[in-house]
């Protein structure tokens, strides 16, 4: 029932390809800058970079329609940017500032933009799958014809939540595509050392669900497959698994050099197939000259620089709003009688009031 696809016919016009190239470069430059800022201690916590995975990120986000729903794991900067969240809002979130897309509450792993149908960046491996399944159920209940794209890593397919979510999605005919971004390593454990069935897409068949694998570094192949599967999800309410095989150049997170479990040669070899270089070459074949392409790169550099400046200028979230947003408006009244005997300092927490930047 499922066949691994190869790159189909180019799906996109040259103009669109140019824009997608720009988004891919934006993702790469943003990640490079995020690593620099992390090392300068202006970004804290975990910081998972997706350099090398841009064709998968940008290709699937091109196929996802504006009113569709997106859910991702924690390697989510690229997805947020490709979904249209501004580099300013993402960088400010990484900086932990008020103007971040989660107002400095979420950080690198918990980006979101509900207005763009992006329901989070989630940090527990496979935990986002049941949530995404529920969003798909919500779409059906509301009589909407959109679909959910749920991103996960190759490490997530060995979690129980994966199986439970696929079963529910298939059983209930939910409009959802589970996108496995197989970058070949779950932290430092290769797919071969983690999965008894290393062709991860085949696991869909356990739930009589369509599954397929695509070259995640081939922009056209990613667009073709994700567009087709999302269409089926929307129009026929049939869920699917799409496994995009790609590679991450950097470590699991910025704190990981990424060399304990693979060689420099392996990384260098994979960089030969760099997805951005491939799209740049396609644009050159379609009439762009080096100067035009360099101009795009320069624009992106400036946008990322501006994002850093914006983030740097954005105010720290005020400490007196520590608990704001945790509970819905009206909850302060419910909690008002909890104060007597509270632990030191807890009496002051309040939930009401907006966090809007």
């Amino acid at each position, binding site marked *: 029932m499922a066949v691994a696809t190869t790159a189909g016919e180019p799906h996109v016009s040259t103009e669109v390809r140019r824009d997608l190239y720009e988004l891919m470069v934006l993702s790469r430059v943003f990640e490079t800058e995020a690593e620099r800022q992390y090392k300068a201690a202006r970004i804290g916590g975990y910081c998972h970079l997706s350099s090398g995975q841009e064709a998968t990120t940008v290709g699937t986000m091109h196929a996802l329609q504006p009113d569709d*729903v997106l*859910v991702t794991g924690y390697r989510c900067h690229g997805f947020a940017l490709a979904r249209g969240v501004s580099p300013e809002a993402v960088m400010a979130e990484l900086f932990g500032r008020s103007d*971040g*897309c*989660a*107002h*400095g*509450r*979420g950080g690198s792993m*918990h980006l*979101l933009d*509900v207005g763009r149908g992006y*329901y*989070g960046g*989630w*940090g*527990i491996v496979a*935990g986002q*799958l*049941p*949530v*995404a*399944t*529920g*969003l*798909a*159920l*919500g*779409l059906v*209940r*509301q009589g909407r014809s959109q679909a959910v794209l749920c991103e996960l890593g190759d490490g997530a397919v060995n979690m*129980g*939540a994966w199986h*439970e*979510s696929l*079963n*529910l999605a298939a*059983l209930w005919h939910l409009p959802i595509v589970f996108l496995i971004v197989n970058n070949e390593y779950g932290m430092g454990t290769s797919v071969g050392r983690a999965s008894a069935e290393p062709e991860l897409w085949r696991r869909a068949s356990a739930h009589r669900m369509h599954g397929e694998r695509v070259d995640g570094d081939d922009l056209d192949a990613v667009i073709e497959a994700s567009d087709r599967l999302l269409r089926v999800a929307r129009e026929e309410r049939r869920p699917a698994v799409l496994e995009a095989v790609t590679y991450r150049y950097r470590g699991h997170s910025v704190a990981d050099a990424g060399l304990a479990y693979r060689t420099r040669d392996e990384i260098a070899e994979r960089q030969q197939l760099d997805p951005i270089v491939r799209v740049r070459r396609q644009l050159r074949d379609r009439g762009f000259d080096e100067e035009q392409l360099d101009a795009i790169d320069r624009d992106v550099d400036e946008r990322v620089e501006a994002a850093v400046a914006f983030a740097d200028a954005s105010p720290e979230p005020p400490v007196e709003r520590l*608990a*704001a*947003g*945790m*509970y*819905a*408006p*009206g*909850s302060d*009244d*419910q*909690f*008002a*009688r*909890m*104060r*007597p*005997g*509270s*632990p030191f300092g807890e009496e002051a927490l309040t939930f009401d009031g*907006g*966090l809007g930047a």
Partner: protein
Amino acid sequence: MSAVAERETATEVMTYREALRLALREELARDERVFVMGEEVGLFEGSYKVTAGLMEEFGPDRIRDTPISEEGFVGAGVGAAMLGERPIVEIMTINFLLVAMDQVINHAAKVGAMFGGEVRCPLVIRTPNGAGNQLTAQHSQSFDGWFAGTPGLKVVAPATPADAKGLLKSAIRDDDPVLVIENLPIYKQKGEVPLDPEHHTPIGRARVARRGSDITVIAHSYATVRSLQVAERLAEEHDVSVEVVDLRSLRPLDMETVAASVTGTNRALCVEEGWPSYGVTAELAARIQKACFDDLDAPVERVGMAEVPLPYAKGLEHAAMPNEDRIAAAILATLGLAA
């Protein structure tokens, strides 16, 4: 949702189970976004028959049977809630909620704060706790304190049919994730229940269930029922006047009502069906000693489940539970009276 007081209204005597069903039926009829999801809630009519008849009335899409897949469908509730639906997820007993802990604690409870208030999660999880039917170690537990100790959740635990209806309705209309802890032994108990569909019990308000002057017993869920029985018994046998505060909500916790009562009686006994260490009674004792330090004439006492996995043999099970004899003994000891 603010201070809508409980209204004067016509009542009818019904069981706790029927009161829950009435709340579900009223809210399902009122709001299309409300739907019920869980194991055996539809065709089987509910493992404890709370949802009996609802599938017939509202159809299989709104009374949705699930596979045995708690992590999956609790998470599905989180996602549907984030999209603006009003899911009510039934977990057959609180013991099975443990396999969905990641979705409850790491997901539902985090939505509001972690995403900076940009999206809400109006999810209700209903589940009974409780022991007493020789169900043994894996099916007799009460983890109320675990959930009540988690910022981002709200936790309510009704002890009467009226509050079962009133608190479930408040939970369904609340914009945050609310865990409604029901109780196996109380499902069949009867009481007056207001029939007004707009009647609800506000979250975060305790109830003085019995007036008294010698000691305050603070309890919730089935421990309230036990404590009220003990209070009557001690009034007769020992001429002791016991005040009983029924917490009704665990998070938020109505410490104002607790502190006002203890200030009046000068003694406090906290009772729960769960293990007391790090539990609801531990939290209460800490807060009472701080809020009522100058008013206490005796140390705050606690009674809970004996700290063992619950055994099967009937005699052992009874001895382990916070039974009426143990509560009575603790009250008398706190008052310095001999049993």
